[in-house]
């Protein structure tokens, strides 16, 4: 049965048409996937459905009746609930307060009952088998955990349509499995789900139908039975895509970085070495300490003990500036917090960390900056109206590419990539993979952290598996497999 | 009473209107000089122009058990609770410089209206009773501004030949007065015959603006307070006149009265001492310049 239908939706920002006559129809008890490249207009479309802002044109029907939303409150009242791509959390409030915002249980006097608030939230967590303490302040959680809280918040709404805009971009397989269990349950209850993701395997796992957008236009809708991977990719990117994971041949050289007994906030005695010209993958579950290791090497986190050797010499890296000087570049997993100046333009974001290189002593060199920015926009195929567009108005995937190019412009010898394909579309992923393997072929050392095992497996020469801040295994390219990695990542050992 | 004595010395608490005002600082200096001659301990608090702070300071003095209080009121009415509190606590309180509506045990100072009367009369004389004047007010609503404004009205009522072209506040501030005068020159140009500024700071500002516009020769400027800068300007023939208020005598007499009051502890020691204002012109300015 049809629950929600959108027709002829159009929307422009500052004269640029972002959505052009798109449509969508979702049925109760099914999952409708929405796909498209970065910047295709998926999030804009969903935000319109959710009443976050009005469309320029078009109409919306719920169970056949036309509706108009004056705001998100209206949409919620009409039974919509959304997980936003951009995390929309209250960092200073607790997990429970975040989950039950606008649904706080009241005591008899009309005031908020704290005990019931925390009780209800804990109950929800238990039902969904998620172990995040409900008294914790939101800001103390990792992004993955925040994402889980957002999921709980959205799915615990009494809604009939659930919109999920890239809910899995920041979580690992274990959490994704939980989400899929939730989705199955919602389907059982006859709810409609709109699901956005760039991960093909997920789409084939959950979707009952797929609608594809390209350049703000409606392209096609396919039922599950008629779905074919190659065709879908072609619909999305508008062209044939070759082998996704093409890896150039690498010739590992001397050791560039050696880490000895590293202790930091989330790392407990980590040792490994990376050679020039190799890609070393780091795999692990959410919260296992991968980001801590990356941050410690890149000067973003205090090293409490242990030693770093660069080219065999002890290195003192106490700030990102110091790391940069010594040829270490990091692409952060949390671009909103650590990666971008939202108000600044694409160009300014790109050249920020390499500004010294691209200016004449203390003076800026605008012509050079422009040239560099245009070249990078070209290289990473960034979809922006111009190099001067504020980076915050780019789509998520394009923001990610800006972060990547900012790192690239410093041409570091050691590249650390923490979830570099978060929220990136399949075409762009291919480009990033090519970039990674070409950098290694050029003799750079690459550390690749990712929760997407296929990409780790395809691109890495060697894989470290991290659990609870420790290196649990080091697997060669040949021996590594998803099963083996998960075995090392998950096996529980008695704590020592 | 008397509990605040240290080494047997008498203790007097003083709450001053504002120690950022040049005139009040002079009064305070005189009080301190007198206090050290009389061998009494003087505690000086700065009320920073806020009546409520003044009330609080007097309450603190009462709590500390000082032997007498000297109040330099911020406001006529608003500082009155301070006087009442002291009297209820049986601690003698002397007002210095200006009055409150609640009657203190003694008063040393001047009638603020008088200063404006003297200044205005002088302007009227210089203009021969005919002409246009502009008036610069102090911070609106403060006692000094109100009294000087009231006196301006009463004096001018007797001189129908004088018209007020414009009046505006420059908040006692020289830079603001300069801007205001510049703007008035734009509006009224040579129609302005005289400026009355409620204090010397503003008078000096008006003077400088007029000089820069090349109009000083044609315009009379008179203000109040006799600060050093104004006295020098009078001597140089730039400022036409200022009005002198005797800070030294006010301060000294206030302390003397307080000490008398404590020692004789009877109301005969109180009463009111009015120290007259004096007009300062080029003729008598040397007498005031140190």
């Amino acid at each position: 049965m049809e629950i929600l239908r959108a027709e002829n939706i159009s929307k422009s920002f500052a004269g640029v048409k972002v959505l052009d006559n798109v449509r969508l129809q979702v049925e109760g008890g099914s999952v409708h996937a929405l796909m498209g490249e970065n910047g295709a207009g998926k999030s804009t479309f969903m935000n319109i459905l959710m009443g976050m802002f009005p469309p320029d044109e078009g109409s919306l029907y719920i169970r056949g009746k036309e509706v108009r939303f004056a705001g998100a409150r209206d949409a919620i009242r009409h039974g919509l609930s959304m997980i936003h791509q951009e995390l929309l959390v209250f960092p200073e409030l607790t997990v429970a307060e975040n989950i039950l915002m606008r649904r706080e249980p009241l005591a008899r006097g009309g005031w908020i009952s704290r005990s019931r608030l925390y009780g209800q939230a804990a109950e929800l967590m238990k039902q969904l088998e998620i172990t995040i303490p409900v008294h914790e302040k939101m800001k103390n959680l990792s992004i993955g955990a925040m994402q889980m809280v957002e999921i709980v918040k959205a799915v615990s709404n009494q809604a009939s349509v659930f919109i999920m805009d890239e809910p899995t971009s920041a979580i690992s397989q274990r959490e994704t499995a939980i989400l899929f269990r939730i989705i199955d349950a919602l389907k059982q209850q006859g709810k409609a789900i709109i699901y956005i993701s760039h991960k093909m395997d997920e789409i084939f796992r959950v979707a009952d139908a797929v609608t594809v957008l390209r350049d703000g236009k409606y392209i096609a809708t396919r039922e599950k039975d008629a779905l074919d991977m190659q065709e879908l990719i072609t619909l999305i990117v508008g062209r044939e895509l070759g082998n996704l994971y093409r890896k150039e041949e690498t010739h590992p050289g001397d050791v560039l970085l050696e880490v000895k007994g590293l202790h930091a906030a989330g790392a407990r005695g980590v040792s490994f070495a990376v050679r020039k010209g190799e890609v070393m993958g780091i795999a692990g579950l959410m919260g296992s300490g991968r980001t801590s290791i990356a941050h410690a090497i890149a000067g973003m986190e205090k090293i409490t003990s242990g030693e770093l050797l660069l080219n065999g010499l002890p290195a003192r890296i106490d700030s990102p500036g110091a790391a940069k000087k010594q040829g270490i570049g990091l692409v952060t997993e949390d671009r909103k917090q650590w990666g971008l100046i939202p108000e600044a333009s694409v160009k300014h974001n790109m050249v920020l960390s390499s500004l010294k290189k691209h200016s004449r002593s203390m003076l800026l060199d605008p012509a050079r900056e422009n040239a560099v920015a245009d070249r990078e926009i070209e290289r990473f195929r960034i979809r922006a109206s111009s190099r001067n567009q504020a980076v915050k108005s780019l789509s998520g995937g394009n923001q990610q590419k800006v972060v990547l190019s900012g790192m690239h412009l410093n041409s570091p010898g050691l590249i650390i990539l923490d979830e570099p394909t978060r929220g990136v579309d399949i075409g762009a992923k291919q480009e990033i993979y090519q970039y990674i393997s070409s950098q290694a072929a050029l003799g750079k050392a690459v550390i690749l952290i990712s929760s997407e095992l296929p990409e780790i497996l395809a691109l890495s020469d060697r894989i470290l598996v991290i659990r609870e801040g420790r290196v649990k295994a080091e697997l060669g390219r040949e021996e590594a497999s998803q099963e083996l990695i998960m075995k090392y990542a998950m096996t529980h050992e008695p704590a020592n | 009473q008397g509990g605040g004595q240290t080494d047997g010395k008498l203790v007097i608490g003083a709450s001053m209107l504002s120690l950022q005002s040049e005139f009040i600082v002079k009064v305070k200096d005189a009080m301190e000089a007198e206090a050290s001659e009389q061998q009494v301990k003087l505690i000086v608090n700065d009320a920073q122009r806020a009546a409520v702070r003044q009330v609080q300071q007097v309450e603190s003095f009462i709590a500390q058990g000082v032997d007498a209080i000297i109040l330099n009121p911020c406001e006529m009415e608003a500082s009155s609770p301070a006087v009442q509190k002291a009297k209820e606590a049986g601690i003698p309180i002397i007002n210095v410089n200006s009055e409150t509506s609640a009657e203190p045990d003694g008063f040393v100072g001047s009638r603020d209206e008088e200063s404006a009367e003297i200044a205005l009369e002088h302007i009227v004389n210089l203009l021969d009773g005919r002409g246009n004047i502009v008036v610069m007010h102090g911070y609106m609503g403060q006692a000094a501004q109100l009294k000087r404004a009231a006196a301006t009205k009463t004096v001018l009522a007797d001189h129908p030949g004088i018209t007020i072209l414009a009046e505006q506040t420059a908040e006692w501030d020289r830079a603001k007065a300069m801007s205001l005068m510049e703007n008035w020159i734009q509006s009224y140009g040579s129609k302005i015959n005289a400026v009355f500024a409620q204090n010397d700071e503003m008078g000096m500002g008006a003077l400088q603006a007029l000089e820069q516009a090349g109009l000083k020769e044609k315009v009379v400027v008179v203000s109040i307070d006799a600060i050093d800068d104004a006295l020098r300007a009078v001597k140089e023939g730039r400022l036409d006149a200022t009005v002198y208020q005797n800070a030294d005598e006010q301060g000294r007499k206030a302390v003397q009265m307080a000490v008398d009051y404590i020692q004789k502890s009877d109301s005969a020691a109180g009463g009111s001492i009015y120290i007259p204002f004096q007009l300062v012109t080029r003729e008598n300015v040397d007498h005031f310049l140190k």
Partner: protein
Amino acid sequence: MNQLIENLPAKRIMNGGYLRKYGMLSAFALICLILSLVTPNFFSLQNVTIILRQVSINGILAIGVTFVIISGGIDLSLGSVVAFTGVVAALFAHPGEYPLIAALTAAILAGLAIGGLNGLAVTRGKVAPFIVTLGMMTIARGLALVASEGRPVTNLSDSFNYIGGGSLLGVPVPILIFSAIILVSSFLLNKTRIGRYMYAVGGNEKAAYASGVPVNTVKVVSYMICSGMAAIAGIVLASRITTGQPNAGVAYELDAIAAVVIGGTSLAGGIGSIGGTVLGVLLIGVINNGLDLLNISSYYQQIIKGVIIIAAALIDRKK
């Protein structure tokens, strides 16, 4: 992310809650200890009462503006609102004209109206809070002068003057009012939905909107609470100085905001507590009182006061 994050003000402020409060609490305790050692009268019941009465006006204002700041706004108009509402109250408080309640109602309605206008200009008008309330600061001052014709409004009834000058069971009335406001405000902010929504709106306005929080209503209410409190402060002040003074309250907003910030509320919004604000108010009050008791020359008082405020904040973040 330990070290790095500790280097960042945002995080530091966030580190928030208890830790921060206790840091400032120790600073406060330290200052009280020093003062009670060097000044014999400091810890007397009488002096403590005096301090509390002294801080009550700033306290009421600071609590009011805490609501606005937590919701992500600012209010610069409150000093002028104190003057305006004080004048309004005084105009209705002449002996034998109207009942006491008329003066109180008129002043509080005037305050709420100004707060409502501030809130509407911020929400409907979409003008930055700083500009709106700066404009309102001069508007309300002008209104106070117009209403009073530039003169202090005097001759107020005894019942009115009792509010600021009287005592109940030995406790000055302003302290009672201040205490009641502390209790009511804590309750409002922590136990009611609208209170929690203030944290939400200040913490992440877009997220609040997306969650269906009535963002505009929450903001308007916060401004109305703030100006309403300013009206109460205006009444207490007018009553204490037995005058409706059109030039009262100049720069009060700065003292109030200072107390709020010293108390650990972030000007960025979303963080803060009434308890912290009260602590900030007391800290400033104790410094003012102590420096007066010590009879330090007023020039040096200012220097010392500034140093103590910064030093207290330093201790605060060390903890």
